[in-house]
């Protein structure tokens, strides 16, 4: 009974809306987005509307949505008006809580004070700004469209527009990046006093231009040991600045964790809309087509633009839950850990994990090995 009740309380779904447009494709990015497409935003919005309506007919959303997240791509390419249209579609079709968390991912090169004000008026209350770096040389390497000084300007404008919950995304572990270069970005970010900071290590085992250049040896691979040092240093500096290291790559001031993302890690249902968006509903994972034309085409035929889905076995579900919960500083209840408690000992003695409030939780050093530890524990 208790468990059921807690389910009812915590399982508030999230809505994710994928905006698949970018000004220019960054060479490290493997999200789905299009930089030069003949598809216009209004055309996309028409298809999105159809998807929203079809979903509302076909899916039973368990409860009013608690979080809305506009990701991409570059959602900040949307005008305030376009954003407002989408929110209307959503409200028409889905139950949404009275005070939802509404996040928009924003590229500093696309923000104007007017746009920010408009967003704010539409009810957007969280801005996640893709700063990535405060060094222009690094921004060039990453192929970003913005300059370092645009970041602080964006943050200031957002504050003026009334945003009280701003997150900055940073990337580290570039080839040849030194710890001191990384420090510059972290310190500059801290000076802007965001409520939330995400720091992502550059992923290069993928098919992106930078990934391929590293794999082919054309660019040096980021040194694992140096990247790990940067990671641990970041954790320390941000924690001492008052941010909780609440997930592998995420830091927040008290009360400012990203509720939407927390849903992914805690097994909350979510509905993803737009090309390549993922959903998790009724213990089933599914994902949309990763092509905007195909997406529009399917919806013109009044078909759901779903590319694939999978029903998880019990074992898969458990494995997933373990791996996802371990990513959070809240960890996992001890009684949910499979197997012999003795096998935890090495993690404690190596300083990779600790027990807090009856939960097994990783330390920052443990976070660095979270996948390996999850596998160990799953045996």
């Amino acid at each position, binding site marked *: 009974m208790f468990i059921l009740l807690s389910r009812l309380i915590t399982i508030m779904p999230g809505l*994710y809306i*994928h905006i698949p447009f970018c000004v220019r494709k960054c060479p490290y990015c493997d*999200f789905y987005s299009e930089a030069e497409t003949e598809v216009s935003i209004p055309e996309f919005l028409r298809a999105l509307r159809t998807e929203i309506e079809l979903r509302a007919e076909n899916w039973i959303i368990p409860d009013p949505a608690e979080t809305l997240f506009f*990701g991409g791509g570059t959602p900040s390419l949307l005008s305030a008006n376009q954003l407002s249209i989408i929110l209307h579609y959503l409200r028409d079709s889905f139950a949404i809580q009275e005070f939802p968390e509404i996040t928009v991912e924003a590229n500093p090169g696309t923000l104007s004070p007017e746009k920010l004000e408009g967003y704010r008026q539409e009810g957007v209350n969280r801005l996640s700004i893709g700063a990535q770096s405060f060094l222009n040389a690094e921004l060039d390497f990453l192929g970003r469209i913005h300059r370092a000084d645009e970041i602080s300007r964006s943050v200031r404008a957002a504050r003026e527009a009334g945003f009280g919950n701003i997150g900055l995304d940073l990337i580290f572990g570039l080839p040849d990046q030194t710890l001191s270069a990384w420090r510059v970005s972290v310190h500059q970010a801290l000076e802007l006093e965001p409520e939330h900071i995400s720091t*992502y*290590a*550059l*992923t290069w085992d993928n098919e992106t231009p930078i990934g391929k250049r590293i794999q082919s040896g054309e660019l040096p691979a980021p040194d*694992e*040991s140096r*990247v*790990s040092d940067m*990671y641990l240093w970041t954790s320390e500096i941000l924690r001492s600045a008052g941010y909780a290291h609440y997930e*592998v*790559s995420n830091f927040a001031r008290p009360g400012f964790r990203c509720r939407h993302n927390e849903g*992914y*890690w805690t097994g909350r249902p*979510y509905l*993803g809309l737009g090309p*390549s*968006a*993922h*959903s*998790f509903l009724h213990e089933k*994972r599914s*994902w949309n087509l990763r092509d905007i034309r195909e997406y529009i085409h399917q919806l013109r035929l009044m078909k759901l633009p779903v590319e694939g889905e*999978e029903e998880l076995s019990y074992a*898969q579900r458990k*494995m*997933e839950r373990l*791996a*996802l919960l371990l*990513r959070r500083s809240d960890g996992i209840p001890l009684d949910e850990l499979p197997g012999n408690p003795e096998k935890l000992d*090495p993690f404690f003695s*190596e300083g*990779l994990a600790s027990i807090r409030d009856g939960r097994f939780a990783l330390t920052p050093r443990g*976070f*660095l*090995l*979270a*996948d*390996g*530890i*999850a*596998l*160990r524990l*799953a*045996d």
Partner: protein
Amino acid sequence: MLVKQRNKYRNISWNVKTFFTLLLRGKFDILHAMKMENIRNFSIIAHIDHGKSTLADRLLEATHAVSPQSMKEQVLDSMDLERERGITIKAHAISMDYTADDGQDYLLNLIDTPGHVDFTYEVSRSLAACEGALLVIDAAQGIEAQTMSNIYLAMENELHIVPVINKIDLPSAQIETVTHQIMDLLGVDEHEILKVSAKAGLGIHETLETIVREVPPPRGKSDAPLRALIFDSVFDYYRGAIAYVRVVDGQLRRNDEIRFLSSGKTFGVDEIGVLRLDRRPVEALHTGEVGYLIAGVKNLKDTKVGDTVTAAKNPAEALPGFREPKPMVFSGLFPSDSDELPELRNALERLQLNDSALIFEPESSVALGFGFRVGFLGLLHLEIVQERLEREYAQTLITTIPNVEYRVHKKDGSVALIDNPAALPALQQLEKIEEPYIDAHIVTPAAYVGNLMKLAQDRRGIFRNQSYLDPTRVNLHYEFPLAEIIFDFYDKLKSFSRGYASLDYDLIDFRESPLQKLDILINGDSVDALSMIVHRDKAYDWGNKLTQKLKDLIPRQMYEVAIQASLGSKIIARTNVKALRKNVTAKCYGGDITRKRKLLEKQKAGKKRMKQVGRVEIPQEAFLAVLQINREE
């Protein structure tokens, strides 16, 4: 296995004529016994690839035992693995009817022999069932060491040897050189050497005529008590052990009570028969004949190769030359998942039904848990068994470092044979350790003698002598500790001689050597499954190479892994595997959990091939690391 074999025969597309011919002959077998003077029992001695199978095919075709159309595959070696390795492991036999130029009908029994050093004893028993042998030499390759040793075996068994130079069609054929080699070796005249192309079908008639003319008929006493030689046996899940026999004296009849002399066990004969492409029952096998015997024998161990079958009521003396199969190489086989121990036992038991040389007993290792200590005839035999367990019985195995058997003398005067380094008594209790030695012949082109002598010296070889087979080929005679050649010696021999040198050996005796146990410590704990017994002078070298190899094979883990080699309490080599610092997906973006889970599942599949020893995960292949070590570097 048997199922496979049967399927294979089913695949042969019979033509109608052959079918009826065989049917008629089958009748003939039942009704008439061939006169002893008209029987020829022979085998073919050849180095691998010199053309034994091809020649056998041609003989079978020429005597209509099979039709050319049906000869898509060579008939004699039929096990998949053998085919892949090009080695005939298990001997079989087949009978052919031949009307010779003298107008008489002959029964030719071709007895196949296995072709690898690991199986010398089996070869000798097959040869003992014959009166003659075709010695097939590749015209482009000449005589090889293994062939020589089989020639010696044939001579010991007083076989008439018919020399055949095969592949005379090859442009690279050196007929004259090979002719002289053979003349020197066998002391025969040039005209006695057949020149054949099995591929082109040249000289086949001549070969059959020579067999009839030169190979003596069987010489047994038909009125003496029964003595039949088992030259091979196989296991059939429905019929039990099937022994392939050659009747030396007397007669073997259906319903006879027989006795196997080595075990003394008696059985009633259910079925006897002759061997065509399949088994063909007859009422009796007479003196000199070759066939099979089924007597409700449940265990292949009761039909040992080389054993004598005699009448239970009127037993005769054993035929000479019987030997219990003797494993020379021992290794631990462990299920990678300890829950699968019963399956592994079951698989080994079933394999044993078909392979009487395979022995095993339970073993327990601190590192690997429960498994089996398995004895093999040689490293090739080990590989075959390992492969069959994995392929046919779907076992995932951890195989430990192979070793020979040591004779260990303790201070208290006791002597024990030890086939597992982990079982070696403590140093203080040891008086001395003796190791098996072999007598080895290496045949090589003269140009590589220098290389090979250096290799032999590295492997603690004791030089006996060297002799020239012809102006370009040398026979090097050495004695070696068996332990020095079981791993990679054969490969080294080949690479030091560009593939030309060949090797043959026989066990001679045990000799005392300064041997020590080399232990491997992982994070300070000795891992028993990695221990090995090494010569004192080589301990440091082994220690270094083994720890380095392990370092390459053990993936980085969450903590540093220290790898050490020790002799007693003394650490002689150390290295470590640095800790893995980072293993985490940076971002689980936009709820794409599927991708992350797939990555984890992939990593997990990789872990399946790991064995957890203490806190360290060791990949299965690390337990055989020693086989990957290049000692000559």
